[in-house]
C-alpha cells in the first residue's frame, strides 16, 4: 500500500476522495431494516423458489480453488466432486452469483453511507492483532459449522425460518444457544 501511494499519490488521493469523503450516516432502525430484508427474502422466494445464502457461494469458491490446485483430489473426494467433479464448474451455481451481489451491495451501501473505512472493530480490552486472530478462529468455526448444519444464518435460519422448516427453527435456537452459552466466558473480547 505504502509503495503504491508513493508511486501514484495523485491517483490514490482522488480514489480516497471518492470513497471516503462522505458523511457517516446512522444505521437504519432495526425493524425497518428487518422489513426491507424480509421483502428481499420474499422476492428471492417469489422469483426463484429458493431463499438467500452466503456460505454456499463461499463453499463453491473454496472448491474452485481446490479444483485449480488439485483437480485429481477433487475428483476423488465424494463431497467435493459433487461440486466440481469432472467438467463441472463451481462458478456455474447461483450461490456464487448471490455472493458476488452481496459483496457489491455491501460495498456500495457502505460507500453511500460513509462507512467505507479501513478499520478493525473490537472490544477495548484486546489488541487489534488478538481481534484478528479471534475473528479468524471464530470464522473457521462458523465456516465448519455452517457446512455441518447445511446452512448459515441466511441460508438456514432466515430462509428456512420463513418457509417454516422444522430443521431451520431448531438450528436457529442452537445458534443462539451456542452463542449465549459461551458469551459470558468471552466477555473480555467485547466489553
Amino acid at each position, binding site marked *: 500500500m505504502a509503495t503504491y501511494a508513493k508511486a501514484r499519490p495523485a491517483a490514490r488521493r482522488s480514489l480516497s476522495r471518492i470513497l471516503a469523503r462522505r458523511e457517516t450516516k446512522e444505521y437504519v432502525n432495526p425493524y425497518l431494516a428487518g422489513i426491507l430484508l*424480509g421483502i428481499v427474502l420474499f422476492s428471492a422466494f417469489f422469483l426463484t423458489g429458493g431463499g*438467500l445464502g452466503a456460505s454456499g457461494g463461499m463453499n463453491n469458491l473454496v472448491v474452485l480453488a481446490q479444483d485449480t490446485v488439485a483437480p485429481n483430489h477433487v475428483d476423488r473426494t465424494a463431497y467435493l466432486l459433487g461440486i466440481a467433479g469432472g467438467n463441472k464448474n463451481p462458478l456455474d451455481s447461483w450461490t456464487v452469483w*448471490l455472493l458476488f451481489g452481496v459483496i457489491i451491495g*455491501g460495498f456500495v451501501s457502505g460507500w453511500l453511507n460513509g462507512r467505507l473505512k479501513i478499520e*478493525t472493530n473490537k472490544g477495548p480490552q484486546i489488541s487489534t492483532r488478538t481481534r484478528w486472530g479471534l475473528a479468524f478462529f*471464530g470464522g473457521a468455526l462458523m465456516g465448519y459449522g455452517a457446512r*455441518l448444519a447445511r446452512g448459515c444464518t441466511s441460508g438456514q435460519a432466515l430462509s428456512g425460518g420463513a*418457509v417454516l422448516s422444522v430443521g431451520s427453527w431448531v438450528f436457529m435456537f*442452537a445458534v443462539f444457544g*451456542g452463542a449465549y452459552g459461551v458469551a459470558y466466558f468471552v466477555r473480555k473480547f467485547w466489553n
Partner: protein
Amino acid sequence: MTPFPLPLAQHLGQWGAYGVYLLIGVFFGAVLEIAGFGNSRKLAAQFYFKDLTVLKVMFTAIVVAMVLIFGASAVGLLDYNLVWVNPTYLWPGIAGGLVMGVGFIVGGFCPGTSIVSAATGKLDGLFFVLGALTGILAFGETVGLYEDFWYSSYLGRFTLPDLFNAEAGVVVLGVVLMALFMFWGGEQLERIFGGSNPKAAPKWRYAAAAGTVVLAYGVLAVGQPTAADHWARIADEKEAELAERQVQVHPGEVLDLTYDSAIRVELLDVRSETDYNYFHIIDAQHVPLTEVPDVVPDLQAKPDNTVFVVMSNDEQAATEAWKTLISHSVPNTYILGGGVNTWIETFDDQSVRTAEAASVADDTLDHPFEFALGSRHPAAKPDPHAYELEYEPKVELQIQRGPIGSGCGS
C-alpha cells in the same frame, strides 16, 4: 397465469438467471449493511443484551417474508409446494448450530455479515472471511470421516405445520405473535442492560406490528389452497394433456430413461398387492391408490432430476394417481402408456395377451401368471439393447422449483 416461482433459467437462460441472483444479492448485501451488520461490535452486543439489533432484524425479516410467502400462496400467486424448504437433518443441524453459535460470539460475525464487513473495509471482517473459507475447506476434507452422522436423522421436507399438525395459517399467526413478544422482551432487556429508552424508538413500529398481525390473520382466514383447489385451477390444461396423450409414455421410453444417467426414474405401481406380487417392474415402488397422497412429501424431497412414472394394469388407476400427484405439484410426473399389460406385451416374447383382452381397458392384469414372480420375471428387467423400439419421446425434464439447496445447502 403461471404461479410463481418462475422457471428463471427457461425464460432468461442460465446466465440471465444468474443476473437475477446477482441483483438479489446486491439488495441483500445493502440491507445487511444499513442494518449495521458490517460492525462486529453491534452484532456481538446481541449476546450481552445491550443491543438486540440481530434479533429484531432477523425475526422481523422472517415474519415479513413468511407472511408474504403464505399470503401469496393463499391467493394462488405462489405455489408453496414448489418453494424450496430446507430439508431437516436434525442432529447435524443442532451440532452445526452450536458450533456456529460459538464461532459467532468468538469471531463476531456470521458468514453473510462478514462478507459485508470485509466489503466495507473492516479488517476483522476480512480475517473472519478467511477463517470461514478455511473452516469450509476443513469441512470438505473431513466430512468423509463421519458421513453417516452428516446424513443422519433425515426428516425430509418437514415443516412446522406438519409438526404441530396445524393449518399453515395458524402457525403463521403463532410465529408473528411469538416474534412480537420477543421484540417486547428484547426492548425490556435493552432498557435494563443497555440503558436505552424504548420510548425513544419510533411509534410507527406499533402500527407495523398491528398491520402484520392483521395480515397474518388474513392469511389464516383465507387458508392455504388444498390439492382440490389447485386441481380446479389447472384442470382444463391438464385434462387436455391427458386427452392428447402428452403424458402417457411409451414403455420403451421409460426403459431408456432408467438407463439415462442424467435422470432418476421413480416408478410408482398403484395396483393391488396381488397384482404387484404376480409381476412388477424392477425397482417399482408399490403405492396403493389410496395411499398416493401420503407419499407426496417423499416424492417432493427427491432431487430435481427425478421423473416419476405411475402405472396400473391399464391406465385408469394410474390416471387417478397422476391427477393426485399433479394437484400436489409433484413435478415431472408421467403415466406408463398402456400400463403394465402393455409393458409385459412389449418385453415378454411369450406373452399371451389376447387381442380381446387388450381391447377391454378395465385395468385388470391380462397376463396369466402361474407363480407370483414379482420382479424376478424376465420382463421385469428387460435388456435395453435387446429392443429396438420406436416411440415419440414425451418426457421433458422441467426444473420448476428453486435451485437445489438453500444458499448454504448442498
